[in-house]
């Protein structure tokens, strides 16, 4: 598999969102509600917006 821009960018965003999810899981346990899940959700929205705005 080529180490292309698509591969690096896709991997980078997925890694960021996975890390934020782990932080959200920890925070949920600490504060006792599901509100921290909004963090990885916002990061995913950021990814989708970024892909849709790619120009070339």
């Amino acid at each position: 598999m080529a180490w292309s821009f698509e591969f690096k960018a896709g991997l980078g965003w997925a890694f960021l969102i996975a890390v934020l999810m782990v932080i959200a899981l920890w925070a949920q346990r600490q504060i006792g509600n599901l509100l921290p899940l909004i963090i990885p959700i916002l990061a995913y929205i950021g990814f989708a917006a970024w892909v849709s705005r790619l120009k070339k």
Partner: protein
Amino acid sequence: MVEALGVYFIAIRWTHIVAGITWIGLLYYFNFVQVPTFKELDASTRNVLIPRLVKRALFWFRWSAVATVSAGWLYFVSRWATDGFANPAALDWWYYSILAGGLFGTFMLLNVWGIIWLYQKRVIAAVEGLAQGKAAPPEMALWGKRATLASRFNLALSFPMLFFMAAASHLPLF
């Protein structure tokens, strides 16, 4: 004696697993087999395969994604209902881990329909247009790039998604 609720839960879980294997199997096929193979093919061969092979694979890909995520959320909500919609503070590790995996899967579903299929159907239509003598749209390369990027994202996210799905039952942390 098997209870009706047990049959209900195993039916949803079976649907989730069968549809999930179909979906993620096709995701790995696209990323590990099709994309590298298509790079070795000439344009005329690709244009024969895109409206046939790719179109058919994408049909199973996008609908198995819907079935997987729908069955998954149905299972989650049904199980939470059997626990009386308990306060999140009282929930055990299974809920936290399966919710993480479920959100990853939901992000992947949104990518399938909102990015991959959105752009791939334009590519397919453009390739079918070529066969009718129409010119290729200048945005075609950009459509392919966006779809590939979302597919790579899904490939990478499938690994933590499957980890949290399995860890829910097999790595109870609390």
